[in-house]
């Protein structure tokens, strides 16, 4: 670095080519990252307050789905959020609101708006520069299967492509929700949408965490969303992995960890988190919900028992161990696990992975729960909704109940003590919490959250 405070790059190559000077940028590759805002649109509660009450009370968001019945699905139940349309109208610019037909984007806009508002960060005025240090990573599984196929395809097939309107692009491209949230808030840093099936939400948070940790951004809005309806869910009906034995009793359909899991309940919704460098949060006196101390993503490459639909046990354990290593903790330090646990045969494999990764078994195993017992599987939206639940549990020091377990699966009780699985809302000290999400394509993600302590 020379006296003018600029770096001269010393790359191999023609001197004139690399003579470019860059402004000095003090790079700290190990910034601490905290969570300062939350927002959620969940099948069992929209908005942080309702959601918190719902998860503490074990409220199910699973209901009968008439459309699935009419189209002869064997699974005729689903988990969809309820929301106040006036809040959506308030959050969105009028011209965007009037033509917004995509529910996944509606949920994302509501959750993202709530999280940003909750953080106390400003919304950039229309005629000012965007906030160059704030960015957004908001992922999705499949943004627009129902919004496009259901609403537009008949118009297109009738030979009127122009009549589908100009909003199809923004409401079908995977970064559609990012685009709308960007218009609402005004980001100047990265603005992108990731996609990794059911790990999408957790991965988005990890990507945002890494961006702040390495100094490339100071604030990130991270989350995910998912669409809903007969088109997207038909794919899983065809795979025969949806729950079809509880159409008369929707509340009891999602039964992770049970001896008789019957497939997952299709769900939809969105979760959003504002991540912030500790320095930025301190400077503005922000409320801090918790700290992210590690996060990693691992693909199993569909090897070692992994496949398109099943996660490699090796890779699942690897991402759990890798996250603990980054956090500088061992399995003994973990107080609560918020599992992926979908109410399928994969639950036993996941428990096995936790046992091996944490080196804890029997009654030494930490407490574990899964939000999917209440809200089914929100696919690309699941990771972020569950991440919001995890942060709330860490912040308020409790473990939400697991519902719908009449009998635990014997291959689970042979590995961990039944006492590790709570059926009621449980106040408990939580210093470290681990959250994992696993997805089709053999992708695995894991985050370690730590209770915020202002004195550390």
């Amino acid at each position: 670095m020379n006296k003018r405070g600029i770096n001269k790059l010393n790359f191999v190559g023609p001197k004139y080519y690399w003579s470019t000077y860059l402004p000095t940028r003090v790079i700290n590759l190990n910034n601490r990252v905290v969570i300062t805002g939350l927002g959620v649109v969940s099948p069992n509660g929209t908005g942080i307050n309702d959601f918190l009450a719902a998860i503490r009370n074990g409220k199910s968001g699973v209901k009968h789905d008439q459309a699935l019945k009419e189209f002869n699905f064997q699974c005729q139940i689903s988990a969809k959020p309820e929301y106040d349309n006036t809040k959506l109208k308030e959050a969105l610019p009028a011209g965007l609101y009037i033509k917004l037909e995509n529910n996944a984007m509606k949920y994302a806009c509501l959750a993202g708006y709530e999280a940003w508002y909750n953080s106390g960060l400003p919304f950039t005025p229309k005629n000012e520069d965007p906030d160059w240090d704030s960015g957004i990573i908001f992922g999705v599984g499949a943004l627009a299967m129902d919004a496009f196929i259901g609403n537009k395809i008949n118009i297109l097939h009738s030979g009127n492509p122009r009549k589908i309107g100009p909003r199809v692009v923004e409401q079908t491209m995977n970064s559609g929700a990012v685009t709308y949230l960007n218009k609402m808030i005004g980001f100047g840093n990265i603005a992108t949408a990731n996609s990794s099936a059911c790990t999408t939400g957790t991965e988005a948070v990890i990507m945002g965490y890494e961006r702040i940790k390495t100094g490339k951004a100071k604030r990130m809005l991270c989350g995910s969303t998912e669409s809903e309806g007969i088109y997207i869910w038909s794919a899983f009906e065809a795979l025969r992995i949806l729950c079809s034995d509880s159409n008369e009793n929707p509340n009891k359909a999602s039964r992770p960890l049970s001896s008789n899991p019957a497939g997952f309940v299709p769900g939809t919704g969105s979760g959003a988190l504002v991540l912030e460098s500790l320095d930025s949060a301190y400077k503005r006196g922000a409320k801090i919900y918790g700290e992210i101390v590690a996060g990693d993503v691992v693909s199993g490459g569909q090897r070692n028992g992994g496949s398109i639909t099943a996660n490699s046990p090796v890779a699942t354990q690897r991402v759990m161990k890798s996250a603990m290593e980054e956090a500088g903790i061992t399995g003994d330090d973990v107080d609560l696990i918020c599992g992926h646990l979908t109410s399928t045969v994969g639950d036993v494999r996941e428990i096995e992975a936790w046992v091996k990764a944490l080196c804890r078994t029997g009654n030494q195993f930490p407490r574990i729960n899964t939000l999917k017992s209440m809200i089914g599987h929100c696919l690309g939206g699941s990771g972020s909704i569950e991440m919001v639940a995890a942060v709330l549990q860490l912040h308020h020091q409790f473990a939400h109940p697991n519902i719908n377990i009449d009998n635990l699966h014997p291959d689970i009780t042979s590995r961990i003590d039944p006492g590790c699985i709570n059926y009621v809302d449980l106040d408990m000290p939580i210093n470290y919490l681990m959250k994992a999400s696993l997805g089709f394509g053999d992708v695995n993600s894991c985050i370690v959250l730590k209770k915020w302590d202002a004195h550390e």
Partner: protein
Amino acid sequence: MSSEIIEKLKAIIEPYLDDEDVKVDSLIPDSHLIQDLGLDSFYVIDLVIDIENKFDINIENEQISQFETVEQVVKVIQEKLDNK
């Protein structure tokens, strides 16, 4: 300029006004759709489709480029209606 067309056009434009300071009643023939009314460029395409449906006309691609002011929009609509 047809006051009937103007009134119908106001009703079509009003839901797209993002800027709370811009009221549809302040719309005049010289109002520029983007510069004065604050419409996004793709809102204009929405307007075209809404106008086509409301007036039962078809607007050609090359005519959309004339959609700059309220007066120009009304002129295109009027021509289309006259030729029906």
